[in-house]
């Protein structure tokens, strides 16, 4: 419950999420402000009239998503930092999420950061497309992030150290990085076998001896499963790389 946790529930969000059709048309503001408080700068900032006139200063903002141009003027004027602009037309696979970010250092355009959800949990990798910080924004810069399209209504904050582009090598034979592994787990590949099939990790000469443990730990951490409960990968023979000729030659002494 929002009042207990500070995190909006699905029901809360259902009330403010622009329709799929509207999102497919271009940038639109998502206003996650659910409580009656004496505040109205979002309405004052909106020049298109998409945010309807407040009858009472305590009203929660009511927005006509069809009238909203996604200009983003409201984003940096909201003291609650509760508005983002979402643009699902950004590219075939990615959506743009524009968030207010009042911290230093500011991320650099072109860099990769970790997308966080409403509880601060890492959910995907995000590319910083633009950082807008004009005088009129008064020290509330707006960061544009490219995220996987299905993450447009999930990513609401970032962490600068990029969890998903961590270059630590997990599988030295196939050169799978930790970042790539995390990205795969996020996409739903959450058994060692599935990851092996898609990335070839564990199919190199060491046969997964170096990477299997690390992959399992990461799956356990990301999915909240105990190591003991994970599906163990199939162990295929042979357990040690041998020259093809060794086998093809038939059993010694035969």
């Amino acid at each position, binding site marked *: 419950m929002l009042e207990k946790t500070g995190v909006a529930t699905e029901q809360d969000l259902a009330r403010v999420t622009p329709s799929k059709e509207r999102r497919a048309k271009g940038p639109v503001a998502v206003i996650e402000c659910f409580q009656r408080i*004496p505040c109205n700068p979002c309405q004052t900032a909106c020049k298109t009239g998409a945010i309807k006139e407040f009858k009472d200063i305590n009203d929660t903002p009511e927005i006509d998503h069809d009238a909203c141009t996604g200009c983003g003027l409201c984003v940096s004027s909201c003291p609650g930092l*509760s508005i983002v602009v979402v643009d699902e037309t950004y590219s075939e696979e990615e959506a743009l999420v524009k968030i207010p970010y009042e911290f230093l250092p500011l991320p650099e355009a072109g860099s990769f950061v970790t997308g966080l959800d409403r509880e601060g949990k890492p959910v995907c990798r995000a590319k910083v497309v633009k950082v807008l910080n004009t005088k009129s924004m008064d020290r509330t810069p707006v960061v544009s992030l490219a995220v996987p399209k299905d993450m447009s209504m999930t990513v609401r904050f970032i962490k600068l150290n990029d969890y998903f582009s961590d270059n630590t090598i997990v599988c030295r034979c196939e050169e799978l990085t930790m970042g790539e592994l995390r990205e795969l787990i996020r996409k739903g590949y959450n058994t060692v076998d599935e990851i092996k099939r898609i990335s070839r990790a564990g199919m190199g000469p060491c046969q997964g001896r170096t990477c299997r443990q690390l992959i399992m730990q990461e799956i356990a951490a990301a999915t909240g499963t105990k190591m003991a409960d994970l599906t163990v990968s199939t162990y295929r023979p042979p357990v040690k790389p041998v020259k093809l000729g060794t086998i093809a030659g038939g059993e010694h002494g035969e």
Partner: protein
Amino acid sequence: MRTTEIAIIGGGPAGLRAAISAASMGAKVTIIERNENLGGQLVKQTHMFFGSQKQYASTRGIDIAEILLKDLDKYKDRIEIMTNATVLSIFEDGVISIEQDDKYLKIKPQSVIVTTGASEKFLAFPNNDLPGIYGAGAVQTLMNVHGVAPGRSVVMVGAGNIGLIVSYQLMQAGIEVKAILDASPRIGGYLVHASKIRRMGIPILTSHTVKYAHGTDKLQKVTICQLDEKFQQIPGTERDIETDVLCISVGLSPLTELLWQAGCNMKYIPELGGHVPVRDKDLQTSIKGVYVAGDVAGVEEASSAMVEGRLAGLCAAKALGHATADFEELHNDCIEQLNSLRSGHVGEKIRKGLEQVAM
């Protein structure tokens, strides 16, 4: 003895607005502020304020202070400013005594507007006096006024607006906030503030409190525990968090010593933070010529403090014969703004409290 028409005690948003409005009516005003700088709580607030344009919504507290000081400057021939000057007492004959830079002074004003704000409440738990355990106001002063980090990491007690905002400000200053605790089962502050903190991954633990602070010389860790519906500690739920700062933000109570001395009729109103003066619609207390505005009259917000200050300033000036043609209009505007600020769900508590102190 020095004289003035209106003495304003406390140079926070309420006091500054009171000075500006009284001076704009033509009154001669003296502001007495114990700090080196004017602005009260505003000078520590780096976040954008709520409210509407009339109360400078979406502007940061520090910048609202600047705006008020500029307005003040327009009337500088009528406003005298005393800083580093603490009012020690108001005598029954209306004379006020002041300590300024180790000197003792007295002033005889025709009226006073008391805008002394509020002071922080404290919390009782073992070892609560260890260095490293600070009030939220102190943490803000140290970090936002003096640019010094209170420590490496912080556990915040209190999920009201102040606890939430100070946590956010700590993160902005690069200090890790490990958790925010609140004894209540619900978050008391604005939920938009709570959500922006949660997004950064900081847990807000409702129904939790500090049970024990540990450390020999200074704070090293705290033991927290869960509370049941009756606010009783649940045995077995204890958990340790290592931290070098514990920040206490469990509410404010009006700073009313001077009003007691002046002989004002006071009432205990929990909704307004503690003992507050009974007042009429002009914000005059039971003692003629003693007005109040802002947190000292009931802990609320800077937005309402400014409007109250403006109202008290107008009324005090009028009572001394400085009427302007648009007085009624200005008066009504103040009342309307206050009603609107207090009309919501959050203002409900304030409305309930105010009903009990109306004269």
